[in-house]
């Protein structure tokens, strides 16, 4: 299903990247990434010291999960640029949908590139992360 040279502006793809995010996955990510900030894993620290309602996912976890949607859409080895901005916290129990929409198709140095606008949304309909990406499509 990788993006093809026939891809046009307005084409889009979306994927549920996590359902009912578990605290276990947040801990799994902390270990795999080496980011041990207790705000993500320690309920007492997150609530009583940092003043948050509970722990929340690493922004980079949302980025990584959204990256899975992107590589599924554009195909392996075709992503040339990926940038994200964290808009809102992601909490345990959240279900996230990541969406990419083609905003431009252009030619650069003989390669055909597609620019994508990325939005990751929680199950309340709130945007948690926005981003842009570019992929080689031909």
């Amino acid at each position, binding site marked *: 299903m990788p993006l093809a040279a026939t891809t046009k502006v307005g084409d889009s793809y979306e994927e549920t990247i996590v359902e009912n995010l578990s605290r276990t996955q947040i801990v799994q990510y902390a270990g*795999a990434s080496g980011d041990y900030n207790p705000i993500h894993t320690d309920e007492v620290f997150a609530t009583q010291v940092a003043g948050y309602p509970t722990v929340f996912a690493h922004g*980079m976890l949302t980025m990584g999960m959204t990256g899975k949607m992107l590589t599924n859409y554009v195909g392996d080895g075709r992503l040339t640029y*990926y940038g994200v901005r964290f808009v809102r916290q992601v909490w345990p129990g959240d279900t996230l949908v990541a969406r990419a929409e083609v905003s431009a198709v252009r030619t650069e140095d003989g390669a055909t590139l597609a620019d994508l606008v990325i939005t990751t949304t929680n199950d309340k309909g709130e945007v948690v992360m926005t981003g842009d990406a570019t992929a080689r499509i031909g």
Partner: protein
Amino acid sequence: MQDQPTDESLVPDETRALVGTLVAEPVRAEITAKESQRYAQAVGDLDPVYFDIDAASAAGHPTLVAPPTFVTHAVVVGLPLDRIRTDGLFTGAMPMRLRVQRTMFGGEEWDFDAPVYVGDTITAETRLASIDEKAGSKGPFVRIVRETTFTNQHGDVVARSRQIGIAR
């Protein structure tokens, strides 16, 4: 407080002078299958080219592929517990003084220049790319951009990432 501002700037001149310099010692790490796969599992990305050598070969790769964003984590060096700061990060980064209360991670962007494979040795060099004071709706803030260049054992730049910090 020792560092009373003498002007309105949140960024002391000594910090502004660090733009372009390395913010930490360069780090070198080997991409291992186990670590790459643990990362892929943690982000729920079970693409066979990360796990199955035959699938990687069939897709035209010389060996197992690492997920594109894994390279950032591959160069995190494990350290004993007493060198982990209260914010969970490792000590060792060069200090940078700002006249702010808190810093937040605002986002990150990458350029992917070449695939990263299991067995590659990656060297990461991080510089302070820019530090700008901005006016925001909640008052002035500082936008800090650190840029990391990832280079493989062949001398090819495989990725560049920019980490954006917001301090106010």
